[in-house]
């Protein structure tokens, strides 16, 4: 988690306006508030988590990204963050479009379904993968649309979404993703982090 927070924090300029979509208990918000910017908001669907955030004094709205991002004006945030949540939406494409409208820049992180440990489970065990990063069983997972680093990379190019920066994370090792190492990073990373713009 800490590594991901650091990478996200490094992608953000100081004293900018940030929205964390699916902010959970507000750990990333708190981290950014201490390190980068005071002007940070959150959107979260779980009542309990919203209450936890508010208890910490974080400005969070209870709501659903798929229906409630609309209410924010165009480009009203310098950065919108979607941390490991894209796969849980009914319509990820719609959410990405909404994020790109609301934020001047968007940071998306995705648990990589192309990671070799994930692939091996399906290949050798013949069961849906369960890993540290993807701890759910097939019957109770909130993840509806799993994708790989390569899937997201290709999605961006097919939709003419500009990728400013793409970073791969394996344990605590950080590396850049580019066109030539895409297949390798897709195999050897558990998390992909993308800074994009419409």
């Amino acid at each position, binding site marked *: 988690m800490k590594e991901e927070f650091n990478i996200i924090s490094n992608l953000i300029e100081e004293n900018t306006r940030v929205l964390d979509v699916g902010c959970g208990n507000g750990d990333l918000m708190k981290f950014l508030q201490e390190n980068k910017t005071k002007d940070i908001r959150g959107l979260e669907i779980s009542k309990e988590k919203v*209450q936890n955030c508010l*208890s910490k004094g974080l400005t969070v709205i*209870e709501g659903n990204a798929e229906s409630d991002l609309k209410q*924010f004006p165009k480009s009203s945030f310098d950065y919108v963050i979607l941390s490991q949540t894209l796969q849980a939406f009914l319509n990820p494409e719609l959410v990405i479009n909404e994020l790109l409208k609301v934020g001047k820049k968007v940071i998306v992180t995705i648990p990589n379904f192309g990671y070799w440990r994930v692939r091996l489970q399906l290949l050798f065990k013949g069961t849906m993968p369960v890993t540290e990063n993807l701890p759910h069983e097939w019957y109770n997972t909130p993840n509806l649309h799993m994708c790989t680093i390569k899937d997201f990379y290709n999605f961006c190019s097919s939709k003419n979404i500009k990728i400013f920066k793409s970073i791969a994370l394996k344990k605590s090792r950080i590396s850049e993703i580019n066109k030539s190492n895409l297949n390798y990073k897709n195999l050897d990373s558990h998390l992909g982090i993308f800074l994009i713009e419409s």
Partner: protein
Amino acid sequence: MNKNIDTKKIIISNPLKLDCGKEINNFPVAYETYGELNSEKSNAILVFHALTGDQYVSGKNPITNKDGWWSYVVGENKPIDTNKFFVICANVIGGCMGSYGPSTINESTGKQIGTDFPIITINDMVNAQYELIKYLEIEKLFAVVGGSMGGMQVLQFVANFPDKAKLAIPIACTSSHSAQNIAFNELGRQAIMADSKWENGFYSNYKLNPDKGLAVARMAAHITYLSEKGLQEKFGRKLQDRDSLRYGFEADFQIESYLRYQGSVFVDRFDANSYLYITRAMDYFDLSKQCKGNLSDAFKETKTKFFVISFTSDWLYPTSENREIVIALNSIGADVGFVEIESDKGHDSFLLDVPSFLKTLGDYINSTYKVINERRI
């Protein structure tokens, strides 16, 4: 009602132009305070009361001898901790706890003003209370907080005075009274006015009180403050002090007895004309209309931080209406947080012991106070 209790009171000498066009001056505003104002005057919280509330937020209400109406929220070591905050609450104008209202004695006639009292609005109430803040010489409030009609006053206060509060917490309210809200209020008013003892509002001249009408108004309104589930769980079809139905119109059921009791205790502490005037003020409340249909415009000047709270089982001011306030604030990029609290206690949840509400509210106020003070805004 105006009994001989030593209420804190100021007389506002500045003329106040009311929305109805009339002007009032030299009128009383009764208030109460809790805790101490710190030397920087940065810890003041103005609490607005709801329809039948008063300035006695916490401690013992000296008139009813019951706990203050927001004792769960305000007091020592409560979510709004009076060891830390200076809490101010004023009786609204139109009310009957010492502020200028229909039961105020007109000095030239020696009689109550009755229905000669001008129609007042939420805007008028807020403007009158602003005079109290000026009198207390508080340049900037830390927070304005209130539920139901108190929440409407919070919204109106920030709209009128965009730089006078750092934090605004409207709870279980609306920016515009709905047809359903107006309908229930009209039912209550008609009950009062149908009481032959109402005498067109001049009952006090005849030493009468339309208590039956007022009790019915309270009974009807009380139902709207609860939820169907809450009622069913608490009362169901349980019988009152009897084993079987009596085949008559006495209070066979506990719910009947409960409502009758609520009606009867209410008439001892509340003035029927005040009930008419205050419900009318609520019905006239439509903040978006004040801004030509765009609610966001009401807040476009403000740097105030907002925290909106609603309750799942509140059907009088439902989450959807609270959310409209959030949407209006979001659309101008205002700083707004929002949560809907799970509770089956209906609209009254904000007055009751709802632990997740009390915890969230308390934690939020305290951590925000800390953050804002650290930032020295």
